[in-house]
């Protein structure tokens, strides 16, 4: 009985979690206006979020593909909200 309950909880949890949108797959479908808004939000968040732990590093330090990986790493490391991480990524890639 205990095992069945545990299995049920696991299946429900998996169903809920996989039904949400992913991390970066929506980036390609954004319009220019949405990207612009994301960039502006990223410009506002970048000096605040990054400086919370370390000196904020500017966009030209890495290539766009490197920023993709680094922001995935930082989203984990600092537990950044996905939308804010996407905004900062857009800003870093656009400010090169």
């Amino acid at each position: 009985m205990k095992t069945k309950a545990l299995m049920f909880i696991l299946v429900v949890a998996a169903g809920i979690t996989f039904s949400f949108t992913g991390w970066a797959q929506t980036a390609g479908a954004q319009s220019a206006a949405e990207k612009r808004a994301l960039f502006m939000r990223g410009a506002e968040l970048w000096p605040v979020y990054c400086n919370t732990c370390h000196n904020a590093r500017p966009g030209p330090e890495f290539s766009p593909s490197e920023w993709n990986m680094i922001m995935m790493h930082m989203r984990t490391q600092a537990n950044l909200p996905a939308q804010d991480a996407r905004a900062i990524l857009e800003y870093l890639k656009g400010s090169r």
Partner: protein
Amino acid sequence: MLELNRRLRFGCSRKMVAAAIWTLPFAIILAGSMARVVSAADSGDSALLIQIKQEIDQLKADREKDRQQIQHLEQQIQAIQKQPAQAPPNQPSATQQATDQQLKALAAKVAAQSSPQSFAQEVNDYLGRYRFTIVGGAAGGFIYDRQSNINTYNLDLEPILLWQISDRMLFEATIEASLPSGGAADYELPVATLQYFLNDYMEVVAGIFDQPFGDWYEDQSPFWVNRFITAPLPYGANALVPGSDIGLQLRGAYQWGAVGQIADYTVWSGNGPGYNQATCTGNTSPSPLPSCSTRALVGDTLVGVNNIRLNTHTPAFGARIRVYPLPVESELGRLEVGASTYDGKWLNGLWLKSWGADFNYFKGNLQTRGEWIQSYRQMPGSIGADNRQGWYVQAGYFLAGVRPPLMPSSWAAILDKFEPLIRYSGVNQRASVLSDISTTPGIGFNGSPAVFAPHAREVALGLDYWFAPSVVWQNEFNFEMPGAGGFYSDTGARVGAVPNDRAFLSQFAIGF
């Protein structure tokens, strides 16, 4: 004939004389007028004459310039006229044809006006779907400790390998290469994880990871991120909570208010803590020392990572939450408050239970942070519990914007990059294990035996100079001021008063 001549001469003369008589007054008047005009020109229009003269000179110069250009063009024509003898224009060579085609292709590309985004897309297409890069840090420096009378240079390298497998999945590994005392390089693997983003609010992390307890291990320990060179005492050589674990994490974040008002969580399970039991180190076969059974002691130091756990029962569990109450737009600064707990069995049926609270606040050039940690370790038999407390508070201030009077402006740019720091940290525990005390310095550890005292206290003063956001020259003075009390659990002797100690560290660190 003579008469004719005379008539012509005198007849005409007579008429001319008459005309002259009539025209003479007018001539005199006209001459007077002309004289006045000339006089006016001489006196008032000399500037006009100078200007005319200058224009004439300019025309002469232009003419000379035109002459030179004509000469130059004639020379070019002569050179072109000589070319048909070398390469007939109606029969271009194959190389010239290829060059023309390449030029046309390049001109077409330039005319297409490629944007940075399309260029980046082309580069990404060329590189392929999967991505790999290396970031990380390196540090080298000098350590001096007064009590152990040791001074040494040191070096450490920590590359972080990132491999983006997909938009949802990332593999990450940190390799730590250090140079220990008197030997070749040591290599460790403090982090090797697979991260999978389930959705915007949850991800799974599996592997060996920095312990998500407090802010230190995960976020503050990299060389160029830590404002100081050493770790605060609760996370140093005699830490209260293990620095890494092997297991599984679930973590995520959620915006609960305005922009910047977020909360995040991490829950995890790992192999749990392990302790050095140094009293028997090296006493196993084929050691010449007599064998002895390992015995747990109050004050044992933690092992770095507990890879394959041999004790029975459940693994360890941890949880951490952080809240950021201030909106970004409030301009009140950034405040973070967090709480952590970590509980695991370090020996069959015996628990290590720990919890901590922490804060971090920064605004402008000021940054402060601090943590409080409490741990409770059950001991076997009749040995009393191994309780410990640890804490630290620190503050740093960038001198950007500070302008002492009479300072030359050229010095201001240098002053802006300095960051003075201060930190106070301490650990309380009932006992220390004498044989666990190490005086071998290393990156992040000054080698002072005073940090192992049951009541260790340390004041650290730092002065950083930031060449770039991730390139820093750090200097740190440590004042070790342990309090009296406690005992050595392996010898049974009372510790009593431990002498104060001083240490100096200087380090150049980069984040790449």
